[in-house]
């Protein structure tokens, strides 16, 4: 492995076969849901195709930009929050899978064997947390921007907490077991991610505002909750 591999997904070959398989199987039902959800949105509302592509493009940009963090290492945002709020979390599974596959094959970033685990953390659990927090804040009467910001930031953090759990399950420490490993991996991934999650939250609010002013019809046709 080159020393210049940057990023934050679980690296190729770093999950033992049984865990790699487990996460692939865990991902499948969500992938089925995602494909059906995506096909449904396009069929019911063909005008949103361009907007879905927009959400994918946003994800492409954010996951290509590796940002330095206060911990002295670098990581990137996931870009999943915007689409999770606009289209619901399941659509993001398909978009996340495409981005992760692109990076695994062309950039040796993440991996084919660890794809299942990376899809679960970034494209399933992250978007569901984002959507849940967004709905919760909405119900509590918070302004929409606050729900978008908090949802996106917490979804990004959740992704990396799950990555740390996945690594700790596969590599429990001899002394201290799962918990000791989890603390170690959380220190590497999740704390680095805090300022980056805040940045992603702000960027998502900005892009949402742009869409609200220039793409109002499509945004209204989504019947945002």
């Amino acid at each position, binding site marked *: *492995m080159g*020393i*210049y*591999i*940057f*990023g*934050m997904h*679980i*690296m190729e*070959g*770093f999950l*033992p076969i049984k865990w790699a398989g487990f996460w692939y199987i865990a991902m499948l039902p969500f992938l089925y849901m995602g494909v059906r959800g995506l096909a449904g949105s396009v069929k019911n509302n063909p005008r949103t195709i*361009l907007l879905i*592509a*927009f959400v*994918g*493009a*946003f*994800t*492409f*940009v954010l*996951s*290509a*930009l*590796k*940002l*330095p*963090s*206060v*911990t*002295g*290492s*670098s*990581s990137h945002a996931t870009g999943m929050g915007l689409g999770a709020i606009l289209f619901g979390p399941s659509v993001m599974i398909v978009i996340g899978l495409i981005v992760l596959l692109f990076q695994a*094959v*062309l*950039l*040796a970033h993440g*991996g*084919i*064997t660890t794809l299942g685990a990376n899809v679960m953390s970034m494209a399933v659990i992250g978007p569901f947390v984002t959507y849940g927090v967004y709905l919760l804040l909405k119900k509590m009467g918070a302004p929409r921007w606050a729900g978008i910001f908090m949802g996106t930031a917490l979804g990004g953090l959740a992704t990396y907490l799950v990555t740390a759990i996945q*690594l700790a399950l596969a*590599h429990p*420490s*001899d002394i201290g077991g799962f918990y*000791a490993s989890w603390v*170690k*991996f959380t220190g*590497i*991934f999740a704390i*680095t991610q805090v*300022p980056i999650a805040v*940045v992603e939250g*702000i*960027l998502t609010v*900005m892009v949402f*505002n*742009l869409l609200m002013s*220039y*793409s109002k019809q499509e945004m209204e046709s989504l019947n945002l909750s």
Partner: protein
Amino acid sequence: MSNFKLNLVLTLLVILIVALAFVINSEAEFLGADSQAEEAVSEVNPNYEPWFEPLWEPPSPEVESLLFALQAAIGAGFICFYIGYKMGIKKGDISAKLQV
């Protein structure tokens, strides 16, 4: 505050947060979090051998940054196309109404 001004302020805030990393931790190397995770795996599980290698790796950091830049450019290109396209439609609607 207009949308434009608000976005300007938010952009500055983003730049400040990112730049803060260099102020707080000016000596750091800013390596990727995953290369640190590789070290951590070899610490907690010294006998672990990755059982699968990437099928293809960018041959140099230059080629890698080319591909990352390409990824960002494709994304940003589409985002700008979309916003520009929608702005054009909006402007067209307004001028059509004015002519009627």
